[in-house]
């Protein structure tokens, strides 16, 4: 489904990804782990077409075709989804209308019928249950004044509404207390099917207790330094990341990268 080949990317003059290879097939769950600032979030953002990053080399294939030339909107309509680490607030725009707008954009793209507000209301109520969200969320402005946990749940709600083929979850566990984490994980597990795939980007192993990955990859300094099964995550939890890092590259560079890559 997704094939990333020797991907190099930079922001301004700083190279962040230095030759990433990754293959994700339908029905799989992948976890990408790594120290802060290693380029994990960047990878997810590049796949969905964030304008801040420039791909200098390599390619991203989705269902066998390169998507680097597609606009973010085209990628989204093709079924690529990103649950943002820091979802932006959109004051004044009602959450329910936003969800309906997105849902109908997809329906139009698929040549299917759009839902009017009443039908959508029914539809969305079912989806709310997946993330155990209150209906009142629908009446608020998109992400405005939401707590960290509410924002993350709202992201999963959107995933439930849009039913993407390929979903990146960027640090979806950060800032969640244990109950919220369980709800979010439960939601994600419910949305998992044989014909879609999920890539989780996370710093901690904790989320993986709730969503079991088929593959775990470690990303550091813009390169995949190790891949393995879910047991790799446990090993990382125990030993940290240092043993995987090439010698001479300490925490200092990481911090620099973190400051360049930003959020």
């Amino acid at each position, binding site marked *: 489904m997704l094939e990333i080949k020797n991907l190099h990317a930079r922001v301004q003059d700083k190279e962040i990804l230095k030759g990433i290879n990754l293959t994700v097939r339908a029905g799989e769950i992948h976890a990408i782990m790594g120290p802060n600032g290693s380029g994990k979030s960047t990878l997810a953002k590049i796949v969905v077409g964030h*304008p801040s990053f420039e791909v200098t080399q390599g390619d991203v294939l989705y269902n066998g075709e390169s998507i680097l030339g597609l606009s973010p*909107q085209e*990628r*989204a309509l093709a079924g690529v989804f990103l649950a943002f680490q820091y*979802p932006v607030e959109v004051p004044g*725009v009602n959450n329910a209308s936003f969800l309906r*707008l*997105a849902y109908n954009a997809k329906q139009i793209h698929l040549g299917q019928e759009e839902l009017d507000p009443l039908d959508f209301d029914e539809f969305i109520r079912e989806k709310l249950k997946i993330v155990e969200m209150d209906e009142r969320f629908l009446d608020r402005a998109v992400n405005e004044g939401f707590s960290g946990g509410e924002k993350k749940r709202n992201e999963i709600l959107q995933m439930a509404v849009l039913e993407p083929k390929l979903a990146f979850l960027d640090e979806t566990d950060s800032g969640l207390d244990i109950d919220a984490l369980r709800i979010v994980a439960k939601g994600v597990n419910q949305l998992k099917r044989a014909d879609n795939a999920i890539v989780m980007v996370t710093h901690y192993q904790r989320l993986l207790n709730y969503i079991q990955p088929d593959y775990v990859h470690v990303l550091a300094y813009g390169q995949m330094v190790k891949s393995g099964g879910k047991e790799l995550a446990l090993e990382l939890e125990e030993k940290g990341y240092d043993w995987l890092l090439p010698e001479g590259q300490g925490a200092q560079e990481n911090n620099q990268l973190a400051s360049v890559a930003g959020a």
Partner: protein
Amino acid sequence: MSTSLEALTNQEYKYGFVTDVESDVLPKGLSEETVRQISAKKNEPEFMLAFRLNAFRHWQKMTEPDWANVHYPAINYQDISYYAAPKKPEAKKASLDEVDPELLATFDKLGIPLSEQKRLSGVAVDAVFDSVSVATTFKKDLLKHGVIFCSFSEALQEYPDLIQQYLGSVVPVTDNYFSALNSAVFSDGSFVYIPKNTICPMELSTYFRINTQDSGQFERTLIICESDSKVSYLEGCTAPKFDTNQLHAAVVELVAMDRAEIKYSTVQNWFAGDPKTGKGGIYNFVTKRGKCQGESSRISWTQVETGSAITWKYPSCILVGDNSVGEFYSVALTNHLQQADTGTKMVHIGKNTRSRIISKGISAGKSANSYRGQVSMKKSAVGARNYTQCDSMLIGSACSANTFPYVDVQNASARVEHEASTSKISEEQLFYFQQRGIGTEEAVSAIINGFCKEVFSELPGEFAVEATRLLGLKLENSVG
């Protein structure tokens, strides 16, 4: 701004066509003689000519205001024609059949069908073409309810006493430079009279169309609402594209008696001038004022200002009656090289008077958008209240947004609250929408609608939709 923010194509001003009708146009220039000629052409009663001449004499002594945050080359008032009328319907026709089909077609094209078969149901329309009213729909139906809705010229012939009583009672002849000019040379407009205990059975609407190049439009609107009556009135405006500026200096006066309610809405889409050079476009210098004369009366102004090269406009309320209410809801959008200096004035005189001001300014391109408002609590306005909110949205880094509120409180029991904020449409927001499969145009429209919803919700039904669509069109090429 990134390339995605500049991607959308520019939408042509779709009302920029010119109607080819033969017009009776007064030669350019303004003198006492011009004023007399206008009055004679309209066969006006003596008091009207006296009113005009008085205004003209005052105007000659006045100077053009320069305090607004708008900049334009000096207007040559001798280079404007003060009267232009389509030739054929010399007097107002009794039936629409006699109206020049070319004119009917024009209004059709503007989406304001006037003929019996096609006219909008539930909305009575007075169509003003250059200096004269060409048709008024549903006039007879309204008269059955005692509601008078006709062109100003007609009212002068048929209801001169009402006109004499109220004309200039809210906006005195000497009020300001442009109102004095209007008082001297206005040619037509709408007149509305709602008798006691009457709720006007339909929306009333005037549609203004400037067609002739180098002519000014100076219309006059007077709405009187007697005790316990109610009316909702809407005006729309468009003009052809010319590369010269046209002056539009209207005066609107509203009078609300005890417990009467007037709701006045405007969707203004005059030609704004060339997006690149700024050439042409309407100078919209308008004086609008309502007087809440009676107790518990209410006047509400709602405006969506999207056009004009320059907007200078402050729809105001004089709250004389105890417990009367004044409201002002405004969306002013400027793009390209447009300039707007608009806001309101709420003068609290009566006890427990209340006013509410919601202003949303959207600036894009290289435009300048200013809110200017005054809230004045006189000593007699015991227990008066005002709430003002004025928000600005900036789109792009070459525009300006200014807020100039003036608050004057002379009364220890009055309360005034003013707040303002600024916001923008960010790249991050647009990317978020895109990641969810929503295109930039739709995203911008959703954000703008969210920003303006408190104002749009005040517009009568279908006009809210129209306003939304209009803002979307106007912003194309600015965001995205």
